């Protein structure tokens, strides 16, 4: 049983993972990160799970790493940090991951949110990378994913000053796709997850992979990958079903094959 997360299945095909370390504003200690990586492993294997929503509390999605834990590690300790493997596990999750962010998403919390494929933020959410204030820097993608999401100038400003931005700013910059009333953030993320869960799982998986390719390859290679993925889907029963249902003006029934 995980101790720092609550996992539920509020809608068919949709798994909801709620970070729950209220005493530390969901600071990402190694235990929490490990449990999250393990839960995503379970969600990865579970054929019933078509999309995952990740959220925190009203006050904080996750307010950073666990500073006390980090202070205890020296250079060798950081080289051998088990957290790196947990982050990698989260990064390679192949199903759609949607972050519903209320309150603080700072440091490791912001980096975790950026691991999600889609970010929905409550109006009072705040995103930031304050590591620089501690004489350190982001170490889980903060300098890479942030720049790709918001561009160089804003990413530099956030990482070098440590100052956070609010939800509307994050939306204008392209870090989040929608801003909602804070009470409805999770609900909206679940709706989106539900919508995705009703699509053909293989198409969703390859589309996600193709989109992520765009972030780390040149256009020609990306287009080549897209074409291969597109071709692969031609061999699936779901493609046949999807096209036939469209022609027959009925709802498609996908089976993931």
């Amino acid at each position, binding site marked *: 049983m995980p101790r720092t997360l609550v996992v539920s299945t509020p809608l068919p095909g949709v798994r909801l993972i709620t970070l729950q370390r209220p005493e530390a504003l969901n600071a990402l200690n190694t235990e929490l990160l490990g449990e999250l990586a393990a839960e995503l492993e379970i969600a990865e294997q579970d054929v019933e799970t078509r999309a995952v929503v990740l959220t925190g509390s009203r006050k904080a999605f996750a307010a950073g790493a666990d500073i006390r834990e980090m202070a205890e590690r020296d250079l060798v300790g950081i080289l051998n940090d088990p957290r790196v493997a947990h982050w990698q596990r989260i990064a390679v999750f192949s199903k759609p991951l949607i972050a519903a962010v209320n309150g603080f998403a700072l440091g490791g919390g912001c980096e975790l949110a950026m691991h999600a494929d889609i970010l929905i933020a409550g109006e009072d959410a705040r995103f930031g990378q304050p590591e620089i204030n501690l004489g350190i820097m982001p170490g889980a993608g903060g300098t890479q994913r942030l720049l790709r999401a918001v561009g160089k100038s804003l990413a530099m400003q956030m990482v070098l000053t440590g100052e956070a931005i609010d939800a509307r700013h994050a939306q204008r910059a392209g870090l989040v796709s929608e801003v*909602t*009333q804070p*009470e*409805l953030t999770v609900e909206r993320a679940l709706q989106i997850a539900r919508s995705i869960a009703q699509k053909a799982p293989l198409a969703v998986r390859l589309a996600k992979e193709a989109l992520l390719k765009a972030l780390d390859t040149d256009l020609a290679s990306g287009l080549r990958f897209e074409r291969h993925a597109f071709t692969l889907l031609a061999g699936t029963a779901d493609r046949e079903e999807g096209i036939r249902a469209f022609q027959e003006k009925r709802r498609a029934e996908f089976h993931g094959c």
Partner: protein
Amino acid sequence: MNFEHILFSIEDGVALLSLNRPEQLNSFNTQMHGEVREALKQVRQNPDVRVLLLTGEGRGFCAGQDLSDRNVAPGAAMPDLGESIEKFYNPLIRTLRDLPLPVICAVNGVAAGAGANIPLACDLVLAARSASFIQAFCKIGLIPDSGGTWTLPRLVGMARAKALMLLGDRLSAEQAEQWGLIYRVVDDAALRDEALKLARHLATQPTYGLALIKRSLNASLGNSFDEQLEVERDLQRLAGRSEDYREGVGAFMEKRTPAFKGR
């Protein structure tokens, strides 16, 4: 915490916060800012509070910043007034605007400088007949703060807002009512009672819903029509899940008086 520069009490769901430096026309100094902030924190954290009433003691409501705190000596370093705005006035204005309950302001006398703009951040403003509003900033080379340059043109139109702020003339309470700057003028002797009556009435109403109305109207000022339709959809979704809505509909169907709890 004992307050020196404000009076603060909570009774029957109404929090009463009265600025209390009457000799200085209730102008703000650092200590008063701290006390107001602490009182508003209590308002926010106490679920029994369903309405806030803000007023002042003595003949004035609030004369804004206490300028004796701000004397600029010849040859002294350039002051950074932005810092005081960032630290004191902007958080105060944001708090009043964002409090999830109706905020009534009873302007009992002269309201000048920041004191003229603080009421504009409240939801329902009553003023004593002898009260007045003075955008005094222009007389000492400053610009109106505390949200005034944003709220005033939205309340009275750009032409009147510019005249008030460029000339710094005294605006009587009656004129302020006619121009739509405030909700209502009340005879001086009746102001406190009228404001309390209004506060006590609202404290028996579905205050969660009232807070959502306030939130939607505040949001409308920065939204496009389509964005605002979405805000209405979302806030109605929340309102529809409240106990008070269920109670309101139930009482209507059963032809009885509803007993609202503010949640």
